[in-house]
């Protein structure tokens, strides 16, 4: 009781001393309860914040552990290639479909505005730059987070709840080297490849809209698009936008794989735990990709 009165007493005294005439009579009594509720809320938030920090720490730890075991990759070549197939070939149609419509949307949205100024013949430049610089890497990353990222988390989560990870541990097999390194490496390799395909199909999709909706001919569209994708002075005749987009997708692939693998490895508590891990993997991957996208854009184009 002494402790309670020492903690809440000052609040009641403050309320008494500063009790304005318009305030209801019950306010001094309610104030300690409100203070206690606020303290509980803050403590809950601090706990949540601490868990978030711990989770970020575990993911950074996994990324470092995987990087330090990258030399094990030749021993894991079979599983690396298998993951490459799973992430690349099996998701190709999704990336192509989304990329196609993304290019069409960009062309339509921008083309309508350009047409007001009679500049619709520049639509090829805008679609090519948008796809390579931003849309291609970003859309590919979102598709990979939703498909491969969720699959990775579910696969490793199921292994965790069915004692397969414990089995690896008792057999003295390093799970980071055995499970995580091939998955992260494969996603970092396949993401830029899928991005190139997404960029290409997006530019083609933009062409469909340009010719059918905006009255721009194919030759004009392709000529402006190719101009935007050429840097005649460079050693390799591609502009910075293409390199920047590929670097972004390489980083996004790594982020998605690390977050998804970490979520799966942390899964506990049967099917429910696997479901939670999967949903956490997709949610956190998308958030991390968006945040990383901002900082990479700032770094590459400042």
């Amino acid at each position, binding site marked *: 009781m002494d402790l309670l009165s020492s903690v809440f007493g000052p609040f009641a005294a403050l309320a008494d001393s500063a009790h304005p005439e318009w305030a209801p009579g019950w306010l001094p009594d309610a104030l300690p309860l409100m203070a206690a509720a606020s303290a509980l809320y803050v403590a809950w938030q601090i706990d949540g914040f601490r868990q978030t920090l711990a989770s970020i720490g575990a993911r950074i730890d996994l990324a470092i552990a995987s990087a330090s075991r990258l030399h094990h990759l030749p021993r894991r070549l079979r599983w690396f290639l298998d993951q490459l197939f799973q992430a690349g070939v099996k998701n190709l149609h999704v990336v192509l479909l989304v990329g196609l419509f993304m290019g069409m949307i960009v062309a339509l949205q921008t083309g309508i505005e350009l047409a007001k100024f009679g500049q619709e013949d520049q639509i090829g430049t805008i679609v090519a730059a948008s796809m390579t610089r931003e849309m291609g890497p970003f859309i590919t990353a979102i598709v990979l987070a939703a498909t491969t990222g969720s699959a990775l988390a579910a696969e490793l989560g*199921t*292994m965790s709840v*069915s*004692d*397969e990870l*414990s*089995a*690896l*541990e*008792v*057999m*003295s*097999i390093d799970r980071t080297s*055995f499970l995580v390194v091939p998955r992260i490496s494969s996603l970092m390799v396949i993401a830029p490849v899928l991005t190139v395909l997404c960029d290409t199909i997006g530019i083609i999709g933009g062409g469909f809209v340009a010719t059918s909706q905006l009255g721009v001919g194919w030759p004009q569209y392709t000529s402006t698009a190719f101009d935007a994708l050429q840097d005649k002075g460079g050693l390799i005749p591609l502009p910075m936008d293409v390199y920047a987009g590929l670097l972004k997708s390489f980083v996004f692939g790594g982020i998605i794989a690390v977050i998804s693998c970490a979520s799966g490895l942390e899964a506990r508590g049967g099917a429910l735990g696997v479901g939670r891990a999967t949903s956490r993997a997709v949610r956190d991957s998308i958030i991390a990709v968006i945040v990383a996208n901002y900082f990479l854009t700032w770094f590459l184009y400042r």
Partner: protein
Amino acid sequence: MSTETENQGADDVIIRFEDVHKSFGSHRILNGLSFDVRRGGVLGIMGGSGTGKSVTLRHVIGLLTQDSGRVEVEGRNVADLSPGELQALRKRMGFVFQEGALINWLTVAENLALPLAENTSLSASEIEDRVAEKLAQVHIPDAGGKLPSEISGGMKKRVGLARALITDPDIILYDEPNAGLDPEISRSINELMREIADTHDATALVVEHRIGCIETVCDEVVFLHGGKALVHQPTDEFLRPTHPRLVEFLGPEARS
């Protein structure tokens, strides 16, 4: 003479639990558990659900760490071992998981080969020979090419057993080897475990609910109750219980 026997007995102890306590949150599982396992012996661990049988087993191989007390393997507290020492100890142990815990995207043969490929310098043909030998030992010589999803629960147990044996371990830990099996397959698994106990010079700990398994496989039994070893007796004595709790637990399965 008695001192000599005691010293010999102490040297002979390979696993020792000494006043081990373990809680998960506010739920206390082990509450001063103490018992010894002699080298080459097969000790059964029985008890009601949630009494900490599997938890006990996981302490031996370092998958769990006790809150207090000591879990010793060959005189060394497992919790005090460095990661390298723990890894070396684990390479000398085999663990048979309740559901097999086979890696589901590897074939049966690849599952068996995994610890050898990862931890030894054996050639591919030597590994292949060893895998074939162990599959034959557990009486499923033709299962090597199948995926875990293509085999029955009983076969999964056998594969799990073969994987635990592949490195010829000194200590084998069985976590409910009969769980989810019909009586006929259970009997064959029990006979297999006994055969392994007779032919290998390995110490074994068997967590089990079923009397049939304990009777066939184990030399001694520890009965867990309230987080402690309520009874630790040779199997014959255990099956003729005098302790009221054990009489109640075994029910009609107890021998008169």
